[in-house]
Protein backbone atom coordinates (compact mmCIF):
# COMPACT_ATOMS: atom_id res chain seq x y z
CA UNK A 1 0.00 0.00 0.00
CA UNK A 2 1.41 3.40 -1.00
CA UNK A 3 1.40 6.29 1.50
CA UNK A 4 -1.31 7.95 -0.60
CA UNK A 5 -3.50 4.86 -0.47
CA UNK A 6 -2.87 4.54 3.26
CA UNK A 7 -3.94 8.12 3.80
CA UNK A 8 -7.08 7.63 1.72
CA UNK A 9 -7.94 4.49 3.69
CA UNK A 10 -7.51 6.38 6.98
CA UNK A 11 -9.78 9.17 5.71
CA UNK A 12 -12.32 6.62 4.56
CA UNK A 13 -12.36 4.96 7.99
CA UNK A 14 -12.81 8.39 9.58
CA UNK A 15 -15.85 9.04 7.39
CA UNK A 16 -17.36 5.69 8.39
CA UNK A 17 -16.63 6.56 12.01
CA UNK A 18 -18.38 9.91 11.50
CA UNK A 19 -21.59 8.15 10.47
CA UNK A 20 -21.34 5.86 13.49
CA UNK A 21 -20.54 8.73 15.86
CA UNK A 22 -23.48 10.78 14.62
CA UNK A 23 -25.93 8.00 15.59
CA UNK A 24 -24.09 6.77 18.67
CA UNK A 25 -24.30 10.26 20.18
CA UNK A 26 -28.09 9.92 19.90
CA UNK A 27 -28.25 6.36 21.20
CA UNK A 28 -26.02 6.80 24.20
CA UNK A 29 -27.61 10.02 25.35
CA UNK A 30 -31.18 8.76 25.44
CA UNK A 31 -31.99 5.93 27.86
CA UNK A 32 -35.61 5.73 26.61
CA UNK A 33 -34.17 5.07 23.16
CA UNK A 34 -31.92 2.32 24.48
CA UNK A 35 -34.75 0.76 26.50
CA UNK A 36 -37.17 0.87 23.57
CA UNK A 37 -34.66 -1.05 21.44
CA UNK A 38 -34.67 -3.98 23.84
CA UNK A 39 -38.31 -3.59 24.94
CA UNK A 40 -40.12 -5.25 22.04
CA UNK A 41 -37.78 -8.25 21.69
CA UNK A 42 -37.96 -8.81 25.44
CA UNK A 43 -41.76 -8.64 25.63
CA UNK A 44 -42.14 -10.98 22.65
CA UNK A 45 -39.65 -13.40 24.18
CA UNK A 46 -41.61 -13.40 27.47
CA UNK A 47 -44.88 -14.15 25.62
CA UNK A 48 -43.35 -17.15 23.83
CA UNK A 49 -41.73 -18.34 27.03
CA UNK A 50 -45.14 -18.51 28.69
CA UNK A 51 -46.61 -20.26 25.64
CA UNK A 52 -43.82 -22.81 26.07
CA UNK A 53 -44.56 -23.22 29.78
CA UNK A 54 -48.25 -23.71 28.96
CA UNK A 55 -47.72 -26.23 26.15
CA UNK A 56 -44.66 -28.14 27.37
CA UNK A 57 -46.49 -30.60 29.70
CA UNK A 58 -48.67 -31.86 26.82
CA UNK A 59 -46.12 -31.58 24.01
CA UNK A 60 -43.25 -34.00 23.67
CA UNK A 61 -40.97 -31.88 21.46
CA UNK A 62 -41.32 -28.82 23.68
CA UNK A 63 -40.60 -30.97 26.67
CA UNK A 64 -37.35 -32.08 25.06
CA UNK A 65 -36.50 -28.67 23.59
CA UNK A 66 -37.96 -26.05 25.94
CA UNK A 67 -35.94 -23.28 24.32
CA UNK A 68 -37.46 -23.88 20.90
CA UNK A 69 -39.79 -20.88 20.74
CA UNK A 70 -37.54 -18.59 22.74
CA UNK A 71 -34.58 -19.33 20.47
CA UNK A 72 -36.77 -18.79 17.42
CA UNK A 73 -38.11 -15.45 18.60
CA UNK A 74 -34.65 -14.22 19.56
CA UNK A 75 -33.22 -15.16 16.17
CA UNK A 76 -36.20 -13.61 14.39
CA UNK A 77 -35.38 -10.41 16.21
CA UNK A 78 -31.81 -10.56 14.90
CA UNK A 79 -33.31 -10.37 11.40
CA UNK A 80 -35.80 -7.64 12.36
CA UNK A 81 -33.31 -5.50 14.32
CA UNK A 82 -30.69 -5.96 11.60
CA UNK A 83 -33.10 -4.55 9.04
CA UNK A 84 -34.31 -1.74 11.31
CA UNK A 85 -30.72 -0.82 12.12
CA UNK A 86 -30.12 0.06 8.48
CA UNK A 87 -33.46 1.60 7.53
CA UNK A 88 -34.04 3.62 10.72
CA UNK A 89 -30.58 5.15 10.45
CA UNK A 90 -31.65 6.43 7.08
CA UNK A 91 -35.07 7.60 8.36
CA UNK A 92 -33.21 9.59 11.02
CA UNK A 93 -31.16 11.40 8.34
CA UNK A 94 -34.30 12.30 6.41
CA UNK A 95 -36.06 13.61 9.54
CA UNK A 96 -32.98 15.72 10.31
CA UNK A 97 -32.87 17.11 6.74
CA UNK A 98 -29.23 16.11 6.85
CA UNK A 99 -29.02 14.14 3.58
CA UNK A 100 -27.89 17.21 1.65
CA UNK A 101 -24.98 17.76 4.05
CA UNK A 102 -23.95 14.11 3.80
CA UNK A 103 -24.09 13.87 0.03
CA UNK A 104 -22.17 17.11 -0.44
CA UNK A 105 -19.46 15.95 1.95
CA UNK A 106 -16.63 13.67 0.77
CA UNK A 107 -18.57 10.68 2.15
CA UNK A 108 -18.80 7.95 -0.47
CA UNK A 109 -21.83 5.74 -0.92
CA UNK A 110 -20.01 2.60 0.20
CA UNK A 111 -18.85 4.40 3.36
CA UNK A 112 -22.41 5.47 4.15
CA UNK A 113 -23.56 1.86 3.68
CA UNK A 114 -20.73 0.46 5.84
CA UNK A 115 -21.58 2.99 8.55
CA UNK A 116 -25.21 1.92 8.44
CA UNK A 117 -24.24 -1.76 8.66
CA UNK A 118 -21.96 -1.11 11.64
CA UNK A 119 -24.79 0.73 13.40
CA UNK A 120 -27.13 -2.12 12.60
CA UNK A 121 -24.81 -4.53 14.45
CA UNK A 122 -24.80 -2.20 17.47
CA UNK A 123 -28.61 -1.83 17.46
CA UNK A 124 -29.08 -5.58 17.06
CA UNK A 125 -26.70 -6.40 19.90
CA UNK A 126 -28.45 -3.91 22.17
CA UNK A 127 -31.97 -5.01 21.22
CA UNK A 128 -31.50 -8.77 21.08
CA UNK A 129 -28.80 -8.75 23.75
CA UNK A 130 -31.28 -7.23 26.21
CA UNK A 131 -33.87 -9.90 25.41
CA UNK A 132 -31.25 -12.67 25.72
CA UNK A 133 -30.28 -11.37 29.13
CA UNK A 134 -33.88 -11.44 30.31
CA UNK A 135 -34.38 -14.92 28.82
CA UNK A 136 -31.58 -16.14 31.03
CA UNK A 137 -32.62 -14.13 34.11
CA UNK A 138 -36.32 -15.04 33.94
CA UNK A 139 -36.38 -18.49 32.34
CA UNK A 140 -32.82 -19.77 32.66
CA UNK A 141 -32.68 -20.07 28.90
CA UNK A 142 -29.33 -19.27 27.33
CA UNK A 143 -29.24 -18.56 23.61
CA UNK A 144 -25.62 -19.75 23.75
CA UNK A 145 -26.88 -23.29 24.38
CA UNK A 146 -27.08 -23.53 20.57
CA UNK A 147 -23.30 -23.53 20.59
CA UNK A 148 -21.14 -22.34 17.73
CA UNK A 149 -23.90 -22.64 15.09
CA UNK A 150 -25.46 -19.62 16.80
CA UNK A 151 -22.75 -17.42 15.28
CA UNK A 152 -23.62 -18.73 11.81
CA UNK A 153 -27.38 -18.29 12.39
CA UNK A 154 -26.81 -14.77 13.71
CA UNK A 155 -24.65 -13.79 10.71
CA UNK A 156 -27.00 -15.33 8.15
CA UNK A 157 -30.01 -13.48 9.52
CA UNK A 158 -28.18 -10.19 10.10
CA UNK A 159 -26.95 -10.03 6.51
CA UNK A 160 -30.44 -10.78 5.18
CA UNK A 161 -31.78 -8.03 7.45
CA UNK A 162 -29.23 -5.61 5.94
CA UNK A 163 -30.42 -6.46 2.42
CA UNK A 164 -34.02 -5.67 3.29
CA UNK A 165 -32.91 -2.55 5.19
CA UNK A 166 -31.08 -1.23 2.12
CA UNK A 167 -34.10 -1.95 -0.09
CA UNK A 168 -36.30 -0.04 2.39
CA UNK A 169 -33.80 2.86 2.41
CA UNK A 170 -34.03 2.90 -1.40
CA UNK A 171 -37.84 3.13 -1.17
CA UNK A 172 -37.51 5.96 1.36
CA UNK A 173 -35.28 7.85 -1.07
CA UNK A 174 -37.80 7.34 -3.84
CA UNK A 175 -41.02 8.04 -1.93
CA UNK A 176 -39.81 10.06 1.06
CA UNK A 177 -41.12 9.68 4.59
CA UNK A 178 -44.46 8.53 3.15
CA UNK A 179 -42.75 5.14 2.90
CA UNK A 180 -41.57 5.18 6.53
CA UNK A 181 -44.10 2.52 7.49
CA UNK A 182 -42.20 0.15 5.22
CA UNK A 183 -39.24 0.40 7.56
CA UNK A 184 -41.33 -1.25 10.27
CA UNK A 185 -43.54 -3.54 8.19
CA UNK A 186 -41.41 -4.78 5.28
CA UNK A 187 -39.86 -7.69 7.15
CA UNK A 188 -43.24 -9.20 8.06
CA UNK A 189 -43.92 -9.93 4.40
CA UNK A 190 -41.33 -12.69 4.51
CA UNK A 191 -42.21 -13.94 8.01
CA UNK A 192 -44.75 -16.60 6.86
CA UNK A 193 -42.25 -18.18 4.45
CA UNK A 194 -39.31 -17.96 6.86
CA UNK A 195 -40.57 -20.83 9.01
CA UNK A 196 -39.64 -19.12 12.25
CA UNK A 197 -41.90 -21.25 14.47
CA UNK A 198 -42.76 -24.17 12.15
CA UNK A 199 -40.99 -26.30 9.56
CA UNK A 200 -41.13 -25.22 5.91
CA UNK A 201 -42.75 -28.59 5.18
CA UNK A 202 -46.07 -27.39 6.61
CA UNK A 203 -46.38 -24.68 3.94
CA UNK A 204 -48.40 -25.20 0.76
CA UNK A 205 -46.26 -26.14 -2.26
CA UNK A 206 -46.09 -22.63 -3.85
CA UNK A 207 -44.98 -21.07 -0.56
CA UNK A 208 -42.46 -23.88 -0.04
CA UNK A 209 -40.93 -22.95 -3.37
CA UNK A 210 -40.73 -19.29 -2.32
CA UNK A 211 -39.21 -20.29 1.03
CA UNK A 212 -36.34 -21.97 -0.81
CA UNK A 213 -35.31 -18.52 -2.03
CA UNK A 214 -35.41 -16.96 1.44
CA UNK A 215 -32.15 -17.19 3.44
CA UNK A 216 -34.04 -16.94 6.74
CA UNK A 217 -36.00 -20.12 5.92
CA UNK A 218 -32.74 -22.10 5.67
CA UNK A 219 -31.40 -20.58 8.87
CA UNK A 220 -34.52 -21.47 10.85
CA UNK A 221 -34.52 -25.01 9.41
CA UNK A 222 -30.93 -25.24 10.62
CA UNK A 223 -31.89 -23.90 14.02
CA UNK A 224 -34.61 -26.53 14.40
CA UNK A 225 -32.10 -29.21 13.46
CA UNK A 226 -29.81 -28.09 16.27
CA UNK A 227 -32.53 -27.57 18.90
CA UNK A 228 -34.68 -30.62 18.18
CA UNK A 229 -32.19 -33.21 16.93
CA UNK A 230 -28.83 -31.86 17.98
CA UNK A 231 -27.71 -31.90 14.31
CA UNK A 232 -26.08 -29.00 12.52
CA UNK A 233 -26.72 -29.18 8.76
CA UNK A 234 -24.00 -27.09 7.14
CA UNK A 235 -25.65 -27.38 3.70
CA UNK A 236 -28.59 -25.32 4.90
CA UNK A 237 -26.22 -22.67 6.07
CA UNK A 238 -24.25 -22.59 2.82
CA UNK A 239 -27.52 -22.07 0.96
CA UNK A 240 -28.46 -19.26 3.34
CA UNK A 241 -25.11 -17.52 2.87
CA UNK A 242 -25.22 -17.88 -0.91
CA UNK A 243 -28.69 -16.34 -0.97
CA UNK A 244 -27.53 -13.65 1.47
CA UNK A 245 -24.74 -12.67 -0.92
CA UNK A 246 -27.25 -12.32 -3.75
CA UNK A 247 -29.72 -10.30 -1.70
CA UNK A 248 -27.06 -8.05 -0.22
CA UNK A 249 -25.70 -7.35 -3.70
CA UNK A 250 -29.22 -6.57 -4.89
CA UNK A 251 -29.82 -4.31 -1.87
CA UNK A 252 -26.64 -2.32 -2.54
CA UNK A 253 -27.48 -1.97 -6.25
CA UNK A 254 -31.04 -0.87 -5.43
CA UNK A 255 -29.82 1.70 -2.92
CA UNK A 256 -27.16 3.04 -5.29
CA UNK A 257 -29.76 3.29 -8.07
CA UNK A 258 -32.11 5.17 -5.73
CA UNK A 259 -29.34 7.65 -4.82
CA UNK A 260 -28.57 8.17 -8.51
CA UNK A 261 -32.26 8.72 -9.27
CA UNK A 262 -32.50 11.19 -6.36
CA UNK A 263 -29.53 13.10 -7.81
CA UNK A 264 -31.30 13.20 -11.15
CA UNK A 265 -34.56 14.44 -9.61
CA UNK A 266 -32.83 16.82 -7.21
CA UNK A 267 -34.51 15.52 -4.07
CA UNK A 268 -31.39 15.07 -1.91
CA UNK A 269 -31.24 18.68 -0.77
CA UNK A 270 -34.95 19.08 -0.11
CA UNK A 271 -35.79 15.72 1.43
CA UNK A 272 -37.01 16.07 4.99
CA UNK A 273 -39.90 16.07 7.38
Amino acid at each position, binding site marked *: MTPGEGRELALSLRRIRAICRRHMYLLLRSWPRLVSMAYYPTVTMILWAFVTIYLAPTNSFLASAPGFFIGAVLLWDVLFRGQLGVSLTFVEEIYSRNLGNLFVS*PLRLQELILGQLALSIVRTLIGVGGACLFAWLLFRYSIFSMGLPLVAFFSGLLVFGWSIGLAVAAMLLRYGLGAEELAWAAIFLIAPVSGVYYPIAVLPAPLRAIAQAIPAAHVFEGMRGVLLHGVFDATLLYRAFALDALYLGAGVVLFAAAVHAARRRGTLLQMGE
Partner: protein
Amino acid sequence: MRGLVKRYARVEAVAGISFDVVAGTTTALLGGNGAGKTTTLSMLLGVLLPTGGSIEVLGCDMLRERHRVLPRLNFTSPYVDLPKRLTVRENLAVFADLYGVAQPSLRIDELAAEFDLAPILRRPYGELSAGQRTRVSLAKALLNRPELLLLDEPTASLDPDAGDRMRSYLERYQKASGCTMLLASHNMGEVERMCSDVLMLRAGRIVDQGSPAELILRYGRDSMEEVFLDIARGNVDEAAPGLHAEGMLR
Protein backbone atom coordinates in the same frame (compact mmCIF):
# COMPACT_ATOMS: atom_id res chain seq x y z
CA MET B 1 -19.88 25.84 -16.42
CA ARG B 2 -20.64 25.36 -20.07
CA GLY B 3 -24.10 25.03 -21.59
CA LEU B 4 -25.59 23.81 -18.35
CA VAL B 5 -29.17 22.56 -18.70
CA LYS B 6 -31.54 21.07 -16.16
CA ARG B 7 -34.85 19.92 -17.50
CA TYR B 8 -37.57 18.29 -15.45
CA ALA B 9 -40.60 16.68 -17.10
CA ARG B 10 -42.12 19.88 -18.47
CA VAL B 11 -39.98 22.56 -16.90
CA GLU B 12 -36.60 23.82 -17.95
CA ALA B 13 -35.18 25.01 -14.63
CA VAL B 14 -31.80 25.97 -16.09
CA ALA B 15 -31.67 26.67 -19.80
CA GLY B 16 -28.10 26.45 -21.01
CA ILE B 17 -26.07 28.77 -18.83
CA SER B 18 -22.32 29.26 -19.10
CA PHE B 19 -20.08 31.21 -16.78
CA ASP B 20 -16.67 31.29 -15.15
CA VAL B 21 -15.87 32.38 -11.63
CA VAL B 22 -12.48 33.99 -11.14
CA ALA B 23 -10.44 32.26 -8.43
CA GLY B 24 -10.22 34.17 -5.16
CA THR B 25 -13.24 36.37 -5.89
CA THR B 26 -16.88 36.37 -4.86
CA THR B 27 -19.55 36.06 -7.52
CA ALA B 28 -23.24 36.57 -6.83
CA LEU B 29 -25.96 34.52 -8.38
CA LEU B 30 -29.05 36.71 -8.31
CA GLY B 31 -32.61 36.25 -9.43
CA GLY B 32 -36.16 36.02 -8.17
CA ASN B 33 -37.70 32.87 -6.76
CA GLY B 34 -37.57 30.10 -9.34
CA ALA B 35 -34.89 31.84 -11.41
CA GLY B 36 -32.61 28.78 -11.16
CA LYS B 37 -30.12 29.85 -8.46
CA THR B 38 -30.53 26.87 -6.14
CA THR B 39 -30.72 24.48 -9.10
CA THR B 40 -27.43 25.87 -10.38
CA LEU B 41 -25.79 25.62 -6.95
CA SER B 42 -27.08 22.06 -6.52
CA MET B 43 -25.51 21.05 -9.83
CA LEU B 44 -22.25 22.69 -8.79
CA LEU B 45 -22.32 20.70 -5.56
CA GLY B 46 -22.97 17.47 -7.42
CA VAL B 47 -26.26 16.63 -5.68
CA LEU B 48 -28.24 17.32 -8.83
CA LEU B 49 -27.30 15.83 -12.18
CA PRO B 50 -27.60 18.20 -15.12
CA THR B 51 -29.52 17.21 -18.23
CA GLY B 52 -26.75 18.64 -20.36
CA GLY B 53 -23.57 20.69 -20.24
CA SER B 54 -20.37 20.44 -18.27
CA ILE B 55 -19.12 21.69 -14.89
CA GLU B 56 -15.48 22.11 -14.00
CA VAL B 57 -14.75 22.89 -10.36
CA LEU B 58 -11.21 23.55 -9.09
CA GLY B 59 -9.83 21.99 -12.25
CA CYS B 60 -11.88 18.77 -12.00
CA ASP B 61 -14.86 17.54 -13.97
CA MET B 62 -17.64 17.63 -11.39
CA LEU B 63 -19.64 14.91 -13.10
CA ARG B 64 -16.79 12.39 -13.22
CA GLU B 65 -14.42 13.37 -10.41
CA ARG B 66 -16.71 14.83 -7.82
CA HIS B 67 -15.07 12.95 -4.95
CA ARG B 68 -11.72 14.58 -5.73
CA VAL B 69 -13.33 18.02 -5.40
CA LEU B 70 -15.74 17.56 -2.49
CA PRO B 71 -13.08 17.68 0.27
CA ARG B 72 -12.02 21.08 -1.09
CA LEU B 73 -15.41 22.77 -1.10
CA ASN B 74 -18.26 23.34 1.30
CA PHE B 75 -21.63 25.04 1.42
CA THR B 76 -24.51 26.37 3.44
CA SER B 77 -28.10 26.26 2.35
CA PRO B 78 -31.44 26.93 3.99
CA TYR B 79 -32.65 23.68 2.41
CA VAL B 80 -30.55 21.52 4.68
CA ASP B 81 -30.21 21.31 8.43
CA LEU B 82 -27.98 19.65 10.96
CA PRO B 83 -29.13 16.86 13.29
CA LYS B 84 -31.22 18.65 15.90
CA ARG B 85 -30.59 16.39 18.88
CA LEU B 86 -26.82 16.52 18.59
CA THR B 87 -25.07 19.36 20.34
CA VAL B 88 -23.28 22.00 18.30
CA ARG B 89 -19.89 20.49 19.18
CA GLU B 90 -21.03 16.97 18.30
CA ASN B 91 -22.35 18.16 14.95
CA LEU B 92 -19.13 19.96 14.15
CA ALA B 93 -17.06 16.94 15.30
CA VAL B 94 -19.02 14.63 12.98
CA PHE B 95 -18.48 16.94 10.00
CA ALA B 96 -14.82 17.40 10.91
CA ASP B 97 -14.49 13.62 10.57
CA LEU B 98 -16.41 13.59 7.30
CA TYR B 99 -14.09 16.25 5.85
CA GLY B 100 -10.93 14.75 7.35
CA VAL B 101 -10.11 17.92 9.28
CA ALA B 102 -6.76 17.77 11.07
CA GLN B 103 -6.89 18.57 14.81
CA PRO B 104 -10.68 18.82 14.81
CA SER B 105 -11.07 20.04 18.41
CA LEU B 106 -8.71 22.92 17.78
CA ARG B 107 -10.49 23.89 14.57
CA ILE B 108 -13.89 23.74 16.27
CA ASP B 109 -12.61 25.99 19.07
CA GLU B 110 -11.20 28.44 16.52
CA LEU B 111 -14.52 28.68 14.69
CA ALA B 112 -16.45 28.83 17.97
CA ALA B 113 -14.38 31.86 18.97
CA GLU B 114 -14.82 33.46 15.55
CA PHE B 115 -18.59 32.97 15.38
CA ASP B 116 -19.32 33.43 19.08
CA LEU B 117 -20.40 29.80 19.43
CA ALA B 118 -18.53 28.97 22.65
CA PRO B 119 -21.56 29.52 24.93
CA ILE B 120 -23.73 27.22 22.82
CA LEU B 121 -21.27 24.42 21.95
CA ARG B 122 -22.91 22.05 24.45
CA ARG B 123 -26.48 22.90 23.48
CA PRO B 124 -28.51 20.71 21.10
CA TYR B 125 -28.68 22.28 17.65
CA GLY B 126 -32.49 21.98 17.68
CA GLU B 127 -32.75 24.33 20.67
CA LEU B 128 -30.94 27.21 18.96
CA SER B 129 -32.50 30.33 17.50
CA ALA B 130 -32.54 30.78 13.71
CA GLY B 131 -29.59 33.17 13.92
CA GLN B 132 -27.54 30.81 16.06
CA ARG B 133 -28.27 27.95 13.65
CA THR B 134 -27.10 30.08 10.75
CA ARG B 135 -23.82 30.75 12.55
CA VAL B 136 -23.35 27.04 13.26
CA SER B 137 -24.07 26.19 9.62
CA LEU B 138 -21.45 28.70 8.52
CA ALA B 139 -18.96 27.24 10.99
CA LYS B 140 -19.68 23.79 9.53
CA ALA B 141 -19.12 25.23 6.04
CA LEU B 142 -15.70 26.56 7.05
CA LEU B 143 -14.50 23.51 9.01
CA ASN B 144 -12.38 22.15 6.15
CA ARG B 145 -10.99 25.55 5.11
CA PRO B 146 -12.67 25.26 1.71
CA GLU B 147 -11.13 26.56 -1.50
CA LEU B 148 -14.62 27.01 -2.92
CA LEU B 149 -17.52 28.10 -0.75
CA LEU B 150 -21.10 28.02 -2.01
CA LEU B 151 -23.33 30.22 0.09
CA ASP B 152 -27.09 30.09 -0.37
CA GLU B 153 -28.67 32.93 1.65
CA PRO B 154 -25.87 32.75 4.24
CA THR B 155 -26.96 35.65 6.43
CA ALA B 156 -30.73 35.52 5.93
CA SER B 157 -31.56 34.84 9.59
CA LEU B 158 -28.94 37.09 11.17
CA ASP B 159 -29.52 40.46 12.78
CA PRO B 160 -27.62 43.34 11.15
CA ASP B 161 -24.78 43.16 13.68
CA ALA B 162 -24.27 39.41 13.36
CA GLY B 163 -24.69 39.64 9.58
CA ASP B 164 -22.02 42.32 9.36
CA ARG B 165 -19.61 40.32 11.51
CA MET B 166 -20.20 37.25 9.38
CA ARG B 167 -19.52 39.16 6.16
CA SER B 168 -16.37 40.62 7.69
CA TYR B 169 -15.19 37.16 8.66
CA LEU B 170 -15.87 35.80 5.16
CA GLU B 171 -13.95 38.71 3.64
CA ARG B 172 -11.01 38.11 5.98
CA TYR B 173 -11.11 34.39 5.29
CA GLN B 174 -11.09 35.01 1.56
CA LYS B 175 -8.21 37.43 1.80
CA ALA B 176 -6.17 35.01 3.88
CA SER B 177 -6.97 31.80 1.99
CA GLY B 178 -7.72 32.91 -1.56
CA CYS B 179 -11.05 31.08 -1.34
CA THR B 180 -13.50 31.47 -4.21
CA MET B 181 -17.08 32.16 -3.21
CA LEU B 182 -20.36 31.85 -5.05
CA LEU B 183 -23.18 33.59 -3.28
CA ALA B 184 -26.92 33.36 -3.81
CA SER B 185 -28.55 36.12 -1.84
CA HIS B 186 -31.52 38.44 -1.75
CA ASN B 187 -29.58 40.93 0.33
CA MET B 188 -28.42 43.46 -2.26
CA GLY B 189 -26.31 45.37 0.26
CA GLU B 190 -24.39 42.17 0.89
CA VAL B 191 -23.94 41.65 -2.85
CA GLU B 192 -22.65 45.18 -3.41
CA ARG B 193 -20.22 44.82 -0.53
CA MET B 194 -18.84 41.35 -1.16
CA CYS B 195 -19.13 40.56 -4.85
CA SER B 196 -16.87 41.55 -7.71
CA ASP B 197 -19.13 39.92 -10.26
CA VAL B 198 -22.87 39.42 -10.48
CA LEU B 199 -24.80 36.95 -12.61
CA MET B 200 -28.44 37.90 -13.04
CA LEU B 201 -30.74 34.93 -13.66
CA ARG B 202 -34.31 34.89 -14.89
CA ALA B 203 -36.25 31.78 -15.91
CA GLY B 204 -33.12 29.66 -15.89
CA ARG B 205 -31.04 31.97 -18.08
CA ILE B 206 -28.30 34.49 -17.39
CA VAL B 207 -29.86 37.75 -18.49
CA ASP B 208 -27.03 40.04 -17.45
CA GLN B 209 -23.59 39.99 -15.90
CA GLY B 210 -21.10 42.50 -14.51
CA SER B 211 -19.74 44.05 -11.37
CA PRO B 212 -22.31 45.73 -9.08
CA ALA B 213 -20.96 49.14 -10.10
CA GLU B 214 -21.21 48.30 -13.81
CA LEU B 215 -24.76 47.02 -13.47
CA ILE B 216 -25.89 50.06 -11.49
CA LEU B 217 -24.39 52.33 -14.14
CA ARG B 218 -25.80 50.30 -17.04
CA TYR B 219 -29.32 50.39 -15.67
CA GLY B 220 -29.06 54.01 -14.60
CA ARG B 221 -30.05 53.14 -11.06
CA ASP B 222 -28.77 54.06 -7.60
CA SER B 223 -28.44 50.57 -6.12
CA MET B 224 -28.37 46.86 -6.86
CA GLU B 225 -31.81 46.64 -5.24
CA GLU B 226 -33.23 48.74 -8.09
CA VAL B 227 -31.29 46.81 -10.73
CA PHE B 228 -32.62 43.55 -9.27
CA LEU B 229 -36.20 44.84 -9.46
CA ASP B 230 -35.75 45.92 -13.07
CA ILE B 231 -34.51 42.52 -14.10
CA ALA B 232 -36.83 40.43 -11.95
CA ARG B 233 -39.86 42.37 -13.18
CA GLY B 234 -38.75 42.26 -16.78
CA ASN B 235 -38.32 46.05 -17.09
CA VAL B 236 -35.03 45.56 -18.84
CA ASP B 237 -35.70 47.32 -22.15
CA GLU B 238 -37.04 50.38 -20.43
CA ALA B 239 -34.27 50.47 -17.85
CA ALA B 240 -31.30 49.57 -20.02
CA PRO B 241 -32.39 50.02 -23.63
CA GLY B 242 -28.99 49.30 -25.09
CA LEU B 243 -28.67 45.78 -23.70
CA HIS B 244 -30.28 43.84 -26.54
CA ALA B 245 -28.25 45.71 -29.11
CA GLU B 246 -25.07 45.05 -27.14
CA GLY B 247 -25.85 41.33 -27.06
CA MET B 248 -25.90 41.25 -23.28
CA LEU B 249 -29.17 39.39 -23.06
CA ARG B 250 -28.97 35.72 -23.87
